[in-house]
């Protein structure tokens, strides 16, 4: 069954606005990762947050993790048209043995209008 679910499924904003995407998961995790996928391209890793971390920053990206609520959020500040893409959260389940299996959610499609 699917581990991560993103919310909203689609988001449309104006350039310059902030975009917030949420991810919820079901079972304990080792880490949670966010990826971006431009149309017709492969996924690109954005940021990894470990289960013992609460917040992480990378440029205009801010990721939070709340393990008690089993949720994470990705905030993109001062969005640009080039941020238009699908964003996926992915989790590595705690106790996934020696496989480190990464399970992806269905993604949030972000459109940033110029």
């Amino acid at each position, binding site marked *: 069954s699917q581990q991560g679910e993103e919310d909203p499924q689609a988001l449309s904003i104006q350039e310059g606005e902030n975009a917030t995407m949420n991810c919820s998961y079901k079972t304990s995790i080792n880490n949670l990762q966010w990826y971006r996928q431009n149309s017709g391209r*492969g*996924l690109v890793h954005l940021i990894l947050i470990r289960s013992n971390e609460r917040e992480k920053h990378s440029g205009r990206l801010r990721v939070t993790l709340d393990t008690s609520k089993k949720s994470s959020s990705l905030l993109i500040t001062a969005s640009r048209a080039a941020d238009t893409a*699908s964003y996926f959260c992915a989790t*590595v389940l705690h106790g996934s043995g020696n496989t*480190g299996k*990464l399970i992806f959610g*269905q993604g949030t*499609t972000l459109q940033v209008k110029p």
Partner: protein
Amino acid sequence: DTAVSQTPKYLVTQMGNDKSIKCEQNLGHDTMYWYKQDSKKFLKIMFSYNNKELIINETVPNRFSPKSPDKAHLNLHINSLELGDSAVYFCASSQDGRLGQELFFGEGSRLTVL
């Protein structure tokens, strides 16, 4: 140089045919993966190899057979293609997948079965 490259990028074929997709990574990573992305963008792991050893084998029809001749290459052979096999297949690699690290993806191979 492309880090993770897969060929072909597009594949159109008839039901019942056999086809292969090839993947190569020049990152020196130990672990490689095949993921399938359906029309709703849901990304599902199929196989993972760590240093030529199969470590993840999800519930995939045995018409799908991965082969890793060395740790830099992971190929996917599909027998007796069905309509439902139409999807985008992504190859990915990570330094050591057992640790749940970030993935580096190829650009995808879009398979269309007619």
